[in-house]
C-alpha cells in the first residue's frame, strides 16, 4: 500500500496537515489534520509501497509498544484516511 503523491503532509504553523494538490483537490475539500506523532510516523512509512505488517514492525521498534497495539494503530490509520482517497489504488 502506498500513499498517493497528490496528498502532501506539511507542517504548517505547528500543525501537521495533509493537503491535496492537483486533481486530488477536487475530491478532498480542505485538509486532514494528523493529531499525533504516531499518525505522522505511519504516514511517512506509507510514502513507500509497504505492507501493513512492515509498518507495524517499524512502529514496534520506534515507539517500543507491543505488536498487537501497533497493528491496531495502522489499521485505524488506514480506516480513517482511506475514505479521502489518500491511498493509491
Amino acid at each position: 500500500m502506498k500513499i498517493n503523491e497528490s496528498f502532501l503532509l506539511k507542517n504548517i504553523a505547528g500543525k501537521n496537515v495533509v493537503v491535496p494538490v492537483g486533481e486530488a483537490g477536487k475530491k478532498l475539500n480542505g485538509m486532514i489534520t494528523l493529531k499525533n506523532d504516531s499518525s505522522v510516523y505511519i504516514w511517512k512509512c506509507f510514502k513507500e509501497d509497504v505492507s501493513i505488517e512492515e509498518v507495524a514492525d517499524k512502529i514496534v521498534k520506534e515507539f517500543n509498544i507491543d505488536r498487537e497495539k501497533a497493528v491496531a494503530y495502522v489499521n485505524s490509520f488506514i480506516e480513517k484516511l482511506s475514505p479521502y482517497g489518500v491511498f493509491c489504488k
Partner: protein
Amino acid sequence: MKRLHKYKIADLTVDVRHNSSVLLRNGMKYADDSSDKADITIEVSEDRILKALEYNKSFDRDYAEYFVSGMDFYRKLIPHYGFMLHSSCVAVDGKGYLFTADSGVGKSTHTSLWREYLGDRAVMINDDKPAIRYIDNKFMVYGTPWSGKSDESSNESAVVSALVFLERGSCFEIEAIPCDRAVERIIPQMLRYIRPENAAIQFDLLDRFLKTVPSYVMKCTQDIESAKSAWEFLSKNF
C-alpha cells in the same frame, strides 16, 4: 483576437487578453500604460468560459471570463510569493485588517460598518479576494479587479496587521488564537486547486503568514457598535 489590456496589480505587471465587459469596468483602476514586461500573462480560452457557464448557471459570458481570469491570476500569483484569501480587507492608516469566514456570515457587512464608523480613514482594499504577497520581509495586502459581485476594491495596498475569523454572535467577543488553531480555519478560504509545482511555495507562505500575522476569532452582531469595538481592540494591539 481578444484585446490586450495591461494592468498593474499587487506590484506586478499583468497582461490580460480578454473581451469581458466586467473585467474592463473593474480593471480600469488598475490600467497601466507602461511598457514594462509582463510578470503574469492571462488569456482564458473560450472552452474554459463555456465550462464555467455550465457550472455556474447565474453567470453570463462576460462574468464567466472575468471569474476564470481571476482564478488564473491567483494561481499565477503563487510563484511571486503571493496568495489569495477569501476575505474582506479594510485598511486604516496603511494597516490592513482581514476578515475571513464562509460566504454569508457577514464579512462585507462588518467591513462596511468600519467605513461607516471611520469614514474616509477606512479604505476597502478588496471585499472578496484580496491578494497577499510576501515582499521585503513583510506581508502586504492588495486590491485587485477581482472583488466579487459587488466590485468593492481599491488600487491600494497595506501592511497586513491582523487576520480575523468572523462568526456571528449575540454580543461582541474577540480572542487571540495561536497560529496552529488558525490553520484549519484558513485553508478552506484559500485556493482549492493547487498545482503540485506551486504547493511548496503556497504552504511555506502560509506557514510564514500564520507565524507572522496575529490571528483572532471574533463573534459579533451586525451593527456599528461591533465595528467600533473591533477597531478599538485591533488598532490598540499594534
